[in-house]
């Protein structure tokens, strides 16, 4: 249903909330440019947890292959937004 697809700002806000809650990150560190591994200190196991959480949020399965190319917070927002808009 395209009618209630959240916009990217909304996706970013949701993702920011997850990152703070799951990994105790500081809100001001979470910018679209922030790199998940280098800047925010996530590791591969954290990434799996995050994907699981995002699957709950989007209601869609996120293939690991698609998440491989993700580097920054902004990349995650784009992926999730694309999923929600049914572009994948």
């Amino acid at each position, binding site marked *: 249903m395209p009618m209630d697809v959240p916009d990217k700002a909304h996706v970013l806000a949701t993702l920011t909330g997850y990152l703070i809650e799951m990994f105790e990150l500081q809100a001001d560190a979470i910018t679209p440019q922030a790199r998940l591994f280098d800047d925010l200190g996530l590791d591969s196991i954290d990434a799996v*947890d995050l994907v699981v959480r995002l699957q709950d949020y989007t209601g869609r399965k996120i293939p690991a292959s698609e998440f491989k190319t993700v580097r920054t917070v902004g990349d995650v927002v784009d992926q999730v937004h694309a999923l929600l808009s049914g572009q994948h």
Partner: protein
Amino acid sequence: MLRGLGLIRLTVDGRATLSACHGQLVVANHPTLLDVVMLMALLPNAQCVVKHQLWANRFLGPVVRAAGYISNDLDAEALLQACRATLAAGNNLIIFPEGTRSVPGQPIKLHRGFANIALLAPADLLVLRIGCDPVTLVKGSPWWQVPPRRANFRIVVSELLPIAPFLAVGPRAIGARRLASHLQAYWGRYGD
């Protein structure tokens, strides 16, 4: 052998604790190349998680394979299973949370793989502190560069750290961060 040759001197605080270990997860800082060798000698039935690059190493590859060590590039589930199985079998599992030897003078940085293993196993951690003076066989100095005087190694069995409080904080990701920063602060206090 190195000790026999008088090249190094080794002091161990808590040798009896080490030799009594059974199915124990052991974590240590990793200042030198000899850490593994010495711990192997002190711990019965020692198993080790080693960086996967060593599998491809011409000299050490056959050794780590023959010893049945656990490679750190197994996928997360397989690695956890391997660690659980070896602890359950009564082996003592050594992990160096720094992942690779520390660089003298630099603050140490821990990977959280060990913390995730400890939380998911779940297993209490026997914490060791390894010191070496003067520094030898450290990262960034060639192995043939012999120290000016005999190297004194000191291994201290610091504490048996219960995993329960870190499990109690809730999500595993948070518990792993708390555990890593606890040990980072501990080893950091003794860093040079």
